[in-house]
């Protein structure tokens, strides 16, 4: 396996007004790997994740210093259009958020507005298949996205992200609103997806991080405490704090 870097975080500090939510951290995210961000609530995981596709641009008072490079180009460079960044780096949210339209439309919308030239129906089918949802919905593509169960909705959101053919997929606690079975379906899906995409996932579940990720970064109060191979972080972490966190001493 080659170790190609997709996202490189260099000395990134993130501010919300006067509050510095993330403090000067460095990270490297590799291609076709699953990268997990863990840490206690409020430590800045979502904040950091949202910077990878410039979703923080919509927050008032947001400021970033340092650089986040995607394939060697700083995504916060003046020449870079955030719309294009979000096309290459897709996002799945914590709460499933299908559009208030049909299952088909949910997936077809983004390719259509981005001027997709191929056959949209075919793209819808392949995306749903990749998200493991095709069999369940193929007879009801016209019904509303809201008529699906929570777990199905989340897979619909994943399918919709896949349909834009991104390079990286960001997931912010994608299973936190789901039952154990839906969770395991999505975890399998993640392992499947990493053959084609690079994935960054935020999770509160140590087991999930251990199961699905190749690399893990542990954040604490905005600082990066430790980063490395998941197997190492979970078996013999260098830092005492990491050890305490993964063993559930605080959370």
């Amino acid at each position, binding site marked *: 396996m080659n170790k190609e870097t997709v996202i490189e975080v260099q000395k990134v500090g993130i501010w919300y007004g006067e509050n510095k939510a993330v403090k000067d951290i460095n990270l490297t995210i590799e291609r076709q790997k699953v990268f997990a961000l863990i840490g206690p609530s409020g430590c800045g995981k979502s904040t950091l994740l949202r910077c990878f*596709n410039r*979703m923080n641009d*919509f927050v*008032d008072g947001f400021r970033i210093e340092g650089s986040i490079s995607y394939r060697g180009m700083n995504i916060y460079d003046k020449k870079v259009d955030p*719309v*294009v960044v*979000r*096309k290459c780096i*897709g*996002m799945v*949210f914590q*709460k499933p*958020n*299908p*559009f*208030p*339209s049909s299952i088909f439309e949910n997936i077809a*919308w*983004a390719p259509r*507005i*981005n001027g997709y030239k191929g056959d949209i129906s075919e793209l819808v089918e392949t995306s749903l298949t990749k998200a493991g949802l095709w069999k369940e919905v193929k007879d009801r593509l016209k019904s*509303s996205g*809201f008529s699906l169960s929570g777990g199905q909705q989340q897979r619909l*959101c994943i399918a*919709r*992200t896949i349909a*834009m053919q991104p390079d990286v997929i960001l997931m912010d606690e994608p299973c936190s609103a789901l039952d154990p079975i839906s969770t395991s379906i999505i975890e399998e899906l993640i392992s499947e997806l990493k053959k084609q995409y690079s994935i960054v996932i935020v999770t509160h579940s140590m087991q999930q991080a251990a199961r699905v990720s190749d690399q893990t970064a542990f954040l604490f109060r905005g600082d990066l405490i430790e980063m490395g191979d998941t197997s190492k972080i979970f078996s013999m972490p260098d830092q005492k704090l990491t050890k305490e966190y993964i063993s559930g001493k605080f959370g």
Partner: protein
Amino acid sequence: MINLNLNSNATTKSEHPLLDQKGNLGKRKLKSYIFAFMCFLATVSVIGLIAYLILDTYLQGSAWINADFFTNFASRMPNKSGIKAALFGTIWLLGITALFSIPVGVISGIYLEELMKRGYFHRFISVNVSNLAGVPSVVYGIFGLAFFVRMLGFERSLLSGALTLSLMSLPVIIISTREAIAAVPSSIKMGALAMGATKWQTARDHIFPTALPGILTGVILALSRAVGETAPLIILGAVSFLAFVPQGWNDGYTALPMQIYTWVSKPQEEFHQLAAATIIVLLGVLLVANSIAIFIRIRSRKVKL
């Protein structure tokens, strides 16, 4: 454990805990009844008053509503009088006003809420739009007279009237559009933006359709108010007797509320009854306009859920 506890309770109080009515429960229930009764009273008195007004108008005017009433022009003789000119005038006014105020109002609302940068200028405009919503209609009439009739030289035409009514409707349409848009869950918006959509694409395909029912409510309110206005039309020089139907935007006109106003101020009882009949027609026009809007609302909801 639990069973034992229940038993011991039962022996000391000789009553099941679910049947215990002690404490302040009675007082709380009484307050709740009083509150419900007051709500009932308020609703009934308002509905009763409106029902009385409509019934009274109906009893006075219904005898005058027949085919002639719609096909005759206003006349000195009550039994030869009709509302042809006024009805067509109102339909023209409603049409032109809708044509101007809906697109301008809705697009301004979307712009102010979704696209414009927040800051001093944004706040300045927001405050002023809210203030304009409270300006009396006479003032719009005076403005229309100075600006459309005189400065732009539109004369006392349908266009001057409709543009003035449009201006009057705009603040309400803008404010309700903004509120309807603000009520769209941000998760939908973020979802769309995260897929590499521009703000405009997000607004057009997701925010606007989701907000449509709320926007339509505002549009109905604004246009209903505009169509019932008399004061600005008097100032703008809508005529009270007109023996022709306007043929285009630059014609003179009269309108239903103008007609009502003219007839009510006459001494003869018959003209008062004619005014009542005209009120019924005006209510009918509003009902039709509202039904169209409700129809669109239901349609748009069906697509969604």
